[in-house]
């Protein structure tokens, strides 16, 4: 029962990852150091920065592309079975996603090179976890309705498409201002995976039809695989006497599965006020070797029950025909388990933007009375306003997905910056995001949220995300 409840929540709790992983408010928000993680080639004007451990970047997102938590669990007096039938089974399709993601910066810092001030180095460690589920439409109908009175209907096994991962990411990046127009950046990432599962390339169908001999024939044609690492020990912690914290800490610090990846980014000025940016994140892979349990079901079998055809059956009147049938099915459709190592490719993300800056700040507005004098604002932050477009795309099991955002950013001296976004993707056309960054001396605080219109009843939201953080920033070498 608990596992069933867990599985149910896995399908419902999250969001669509296209929205969940798109940090459109943070992207190119130059006042916030964490935006360097979204574009290692962004402009950097700091001398150094240090994130406050565990709170320099906290991000969580949840949404659904079809049904909301409120749709199913509102205390509205409507029978939940009716709600599930109408709002999930009869409404969701295999294109709908239900996912979730979180990311917490454990350590994050950066500094400008002493010998070569055009270089800026950044480093850190963050924990990330995500679950990606497509709604298993046919399998859901099969589970709720069964195969009775469904002659000729193929229940598509490829609807089973789910993956999830939790890992620590250690990163070190270099950002270099090549010239007045061009800034490039790259980041090396070491992945230390804690748990992982994936079942995304399934094929086959289950069919019930009129039998050739008997009344019905059930046909299962399957090529289904589930790969996992790290769960077996997790599910048996009671037996080992080990704590979850101990297990996760060990695996998260290179005691688990190891992987390697890179980020690259660029900023290019078309002229003094217009620029293009872009980044590719998580071009990498992880080699899974820890606590591997893989399952597969591959083959074809058609069954018309126990068949007794005389006189052939008289040859062995003592035969266990039921067991023979079971053995035959298992031979045709072997369900196998193995511990073979495997490789996962990280979901690659693409950001790009066009930005137009206007309304130059007065010098008086570019300084403050802070103890730490802000001395060298970036070219972007020399303007009061920025407006532009951002494109986000992510590689998903069923092909790339994209989101387009328009944004407006407003700066108030070097103390406060606000950014608002309007994002359209396949899941939402009303996603308005808003974020601010406050610089109080060396202390930088930021807070941002997406899909603010949904905050009136967040349980009825298809997507909600927030991000906050606290950093210490210095613009001075001395």
């Amino acid at each position: 029962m608990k596992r069933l409840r867990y599985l149910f929540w896995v399908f419902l709790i999250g969001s669509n990852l296209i929205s969940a992983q798109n940090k459109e408010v943070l992207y190119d928000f130059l006042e916030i150091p964490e935006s360097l993680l979204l574009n290692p080639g962004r402009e950097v004007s700091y001398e150094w920065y240090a994130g406050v451990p565990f709170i320099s970047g906290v991000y969580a997102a949840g949404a659904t592309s079809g049904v909301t938590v409120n749709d199913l669990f509102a205390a509205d007096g409507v029978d939940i079975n009716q709600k599930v039938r109408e709002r999930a089974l009869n409404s969701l399709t295999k294109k709908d996603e239900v996912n979730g993601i979180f990311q917490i910066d454990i350590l994050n810092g950066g500094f400008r090179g002493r010998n070569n001030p055009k270089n800026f180095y950044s480093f850190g460690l963050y924990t990330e976890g995500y679950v990606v589920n497509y709604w298993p439409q046919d399998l859901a109908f099969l589970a709720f309705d069964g195969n009775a009175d469904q002659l000729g209907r193929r229940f598509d096994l490829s609807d089973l498409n789910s993956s999830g991962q939790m890992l620590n990411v250690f990163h070190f990046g270099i950002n270099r201002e090549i010239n007045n127009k061009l800034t490039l950046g790259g980041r090396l990432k070491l992945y230390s995976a804690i748990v992982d599962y994936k079942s995304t390339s399934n094929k086959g169908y289950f069919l019930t039809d009129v039998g050739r001999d008997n009344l019905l024939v059930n046909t299962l044609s399957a090529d289904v695989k589930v790969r996992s690492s790290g769960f077996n020990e997790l599910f048996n912690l009671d037996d080992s006497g080990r704590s979850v914290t101990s297990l996760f800490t060990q695996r998260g610090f290179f005691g688990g599965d190891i992987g390697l990846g890179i980020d690259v980014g660029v900023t290019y000025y078309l002229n003094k006020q217009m620029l293009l940016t872009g980044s590719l994140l998580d071009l990498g892979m992880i080699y899974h070797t820890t606590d591997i349990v893989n399952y597969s079901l591959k083959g074809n079998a058609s069954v018309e029950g126990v068949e007794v055809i005389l006189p052939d059956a008289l040859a062995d009147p003592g035969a266990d025909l039921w067991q023979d049938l079971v053995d035959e099915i298992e031979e045709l459709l072997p369900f196998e388990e193995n511990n073979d190592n495997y490789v996962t490719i990280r979901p690659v993300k693409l950001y790009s933007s066009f930005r137009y800056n206007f309304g130059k700040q007065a010098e008086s507005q570019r300084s403050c009375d802070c103890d730490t004098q802000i001395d060298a604002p970036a070219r972007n932050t020399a303007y009061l306003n920025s407006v532009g477009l951002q494109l986000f795309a992510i590689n998903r099991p069923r092909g790339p997905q994209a989101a387009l955002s328009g944004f407006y950013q407003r700066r108030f001296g070097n103390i406060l910056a606000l950014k608002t976004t309007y994002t359209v993707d396949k899941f939402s056309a009303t996603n308005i995001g808003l974020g601010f960054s406050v610089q109080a001396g060396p202390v930088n605080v930021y807070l941002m949220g997406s899909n603010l219109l949904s905050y009136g009843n967040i349980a009825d939201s298809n997507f909600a995300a927030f991000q906050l953080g606290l950093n210490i920033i210095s613009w001075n070498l001395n």
Partner: protein
Amino acid sequence: MKRTGIFILLQILIIGIIFSCADRQDFDQFDDLTIVPDVEASLLYVETPERIINQVSGINFYTQTFNFDAFNEPFVEENILEGVITYEVENTTSKPLDITFEFLDEFGNSLDIEFFSIEAAPTAILTREIAYGPNGRSMDIIRNTSAIRVSAVNRGDNTSVSPLPEPTIYLRSSAQFSINLK
């Protein structure tokens, strides 16, 4: 004036995020969710040509007990709620026949019997549906079934031959049951 605008915006964001609200949710409703699919599959198929019947002396030309563990698999046994077993008997032989379909427990005790008497061809296909559960026979019959015994009796002679092509007696059966998954 400008500062007022800034603070209003900040207040909207902070209050919006921190004090965002939600209609009252009742997650205990999950306990009321029921998942009860109706599943169906063929059960047993027996085919006997007329020439075999003619070769067997005596009227009981066929009896066989089959091990049948589909119903008493632990998951099925615990979660099966109700259902229907459908039988179909088709006779294209020249003999009137009696067919007995018997459910047995693990000790060989008879739990339920279904008897079919069908006339010699030409005759209609005999179809019968037997319900089990609240609106039919006891589900314990199904839950405790460990074997099925099929017997066939020839009420005719051992010499006649049907003019139909490939004269055969067919017994077909399928089961449709509701299973409580949650």
